[in-house]
């Protein structure tokens, strides 16, 4: 996740004149001191490793013998590897499908479960459970549900209708979509919570006005609800895009990139390169490429949002 650190708010007005002449302003230091613990943690656990990763991506990494500078070799190797090229396609399909699916389902859940009733609160908690369960556990659960004989949960359901058994994870044409379904299940409740917060902020009088005008449900959704929750939607969309691109755990626990590499995504490739093939430089290069793409996309979404708000 990319967290944006809030800059200390600029104070204007009265302080301005008093502070003007001093060379070292005490009040300017105070906010930074408060930020220091957080910054320190971010520096040690986030920015330093990140910088180190970028640095290593230009080396043939040999921890004991000493790293060897090889310039952009790692990048050309990664970008020209056909398995990485295949992984781009899988990442995009999985990322987009999972994001769109999770947002739609999250939105539907939010609409259904909005309200103050006690039963709704319990239901909301129940629905939110997938988002707080460890992905490894979820993966094991879904593997059982996807079990490829008529004993499997989903296949026994299909069996009732005379269908199947479907090889959910073993058929290379289906495996990616099976992974996507699990991803949607995990992330939809997460989106739901953000959208619920958005829905709570919708001006009730707009709904009343719409009801008096006799609009249909669809029209109300299209012209009242959606415009009102646009900020929440943009947040959900940004987060989902980032998450979609660096998808790893879902795939790793469910299929490990198989069968025949049909669910191999960018990060599982990078992981294999780094940890089973011991090519830390190549894996760093792959991660840096992903970082750049993610950064670019985030900036783009932000730009579009700002333009949308200005209009």
């Amino acid at each position, binding site marked *: 996740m990319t967290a944006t650190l809030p800059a200390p708010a600029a104070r204007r007005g009265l302080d*301005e004149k008093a502070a003007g002449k*001093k060379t070292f302003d005490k009040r300017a230091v105070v906010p930074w001191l408060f930020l220091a613990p957080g910054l320190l943690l971010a520096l040690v656990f986030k920015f330093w490793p990140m910088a180190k990763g970028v640095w290593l991506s230009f080396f043939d990494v040999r921890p004991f013998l000493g790293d060897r500078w090889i310039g952009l070799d790692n990048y050309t190797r990664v970008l020209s590897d056909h398995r990485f090229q295949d992984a781009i396609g899988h990442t995009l399909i999985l990322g987009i499908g999972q994001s769109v699916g999770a947002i739609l389902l999250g939105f539907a859940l939010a609409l259904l479960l909005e309200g103050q009733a006690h039963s709704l609160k319990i239901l909301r908690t129940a629905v939110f459970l997938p988002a707080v369960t460890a992905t490894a556990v979820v993966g094991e659960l879904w593997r059982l549900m996807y079990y490829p004989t008529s004993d499997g949960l989903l296949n026994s359901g299909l069996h009732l209708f005379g269908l199947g058994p479907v090889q959910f994870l073993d058929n290379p044409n289906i495996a990616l979509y099976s992974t996507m379904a699990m991803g949607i299940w995990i992330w939809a409740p997460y989106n739901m919570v953000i959208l619920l917060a958005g829905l709570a902020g919708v001006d009730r009088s707009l709904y009343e006005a719409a009801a008096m005008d006799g609009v249909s449900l669809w029209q109300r959704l299209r012209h009242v609800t959606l415009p009102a929750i646009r900020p929440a939607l943009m947040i959900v969309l940004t987060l989902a895009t980032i998450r979609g691109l660096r998808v790893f755990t879902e795939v790793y626990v469910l299929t490990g990139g198989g069968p025949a590499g049909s669910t191999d995504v960018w990060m599982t490739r990078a992981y294999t390169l780094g940890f089973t093939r011991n090519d830390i430089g190549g894996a760093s290069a792959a991660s840096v490429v992903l970082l750049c793409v993610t950064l670019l996309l985030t900036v783009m979404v932000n730009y579009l949002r700002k333009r949308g708000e200005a209009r």
Partner: protein
Amino acid sequence: MGDRRRHRRLAAAVTVAGLVFGTAACGSGSDSADSGDPNTLEVWTRSNPDAAATYDRVFAAFTKKTGIRIDYQPVINFDQQLQSRASTKDLPDVMINDTALMGSYQSQGLLKPIDPASIAGGGQITDKSWSSTVGIDGKHYGVPYSRQAQTLMIRTDWLKKLGLKAPTTWQEMLSVAKAFATRDPDGDGKADTYGIVAPGSAQNGYAAWWGASFLWQGGARIIEPAGRGTYRPAMDSAAAVNTVTWMKDNLFCGAKSVLQPGAITAVTATATNFQDGNAGMYMTGPYNITTFDATLGKDKYEVVPAPAGPAGGDVLADGENVYLGAKTGKDKQELALASFLVSPEGQKIAMTSVDGHQPVVRIPVNSTLDAAKVRGDARWSVVQKAYEDASQQFPNAPDFAPIKQDTADSLNAIFTYCGGDVRSQLRELNDTLAGDLKDQDLLK
């Protein structure tokens, strides 16, 4: 306004500088304390707490005998940890880890060469075992410690019920598998049994690990020596094409239920059908015997040599070596420990289970010991015989990890797409393997 901003920037810069110094100070205070003491050896093994309890007994016996203390660290994510230690240029003194890692470690300069003559009792280790620790430059880079070979685990109660015998050839194995799948050996009236368990996923190279025994039995090699420390890829040979085609046509794309469901995405941790009691055969390592005794029951299955293919009955052998970390400056103590570990006394302690903890030596490398006798379990003689008479290891001198992974990727793809052309897919794999060898400057 501009003045204010400058002040704030100055303040920010001071804070950040403070943070950087703060971290640097924290980072430099964590050197290992006793790496200087020549009479203490830091020893790493890739073990879970269960196996570590057995190692504790081994090292306690060594300390009692020699007075050399052991700072023992069982490490689960061994290679990641080792990499971070390597970057501090201060390696553990002694490491016990997989045989297949030797080439990788040696190419990274992590290992000290070892003269077999410097190991007291080194003569009790067979030439076959010693030959598996020879590096690219012809020097030994490890001391053999534990060995194992794959054998076939098979349900005796099912065989008896269907009036069948344990298979000795591929063809027999296939017909037994079909019988297990279709003739309801568990007698519950449902078609819920399977012939053979296969961990066929490419993850961690499992497809190549499990498939290797078939390749050896079909007369195929993944790479082969081409003289003067060079290698050539060999997966486009007729033997390889025939073997892989046989596996594909009869196992993965053959009759229903010959393999367990989901074989193509199964890793060893998820391929539990044999111990769950719904699959009849599993070709695997002897470390599973303890598990199967506990889950399935000792009376329900037996351990037999793997069925032979067209070129014989060789299976994949692997195991662990003792490696000595480079530039640690404690040669004498390290060699003393290595000598103790391979001595009859050291091996015996490691082969026996106390309080139900897992033994850490499977087949002893010390030729004066008999696995079945030490363990009091005749099934181990099947494994020992397989290792001694009919087994081959992966070539350990090159860095085999990328080669194994690429082979697994390719086999997994071949077994997944039943319509594909094996010959051209293997030719493609061969080109990839040539690239891997070239990366290591080992291509003939």
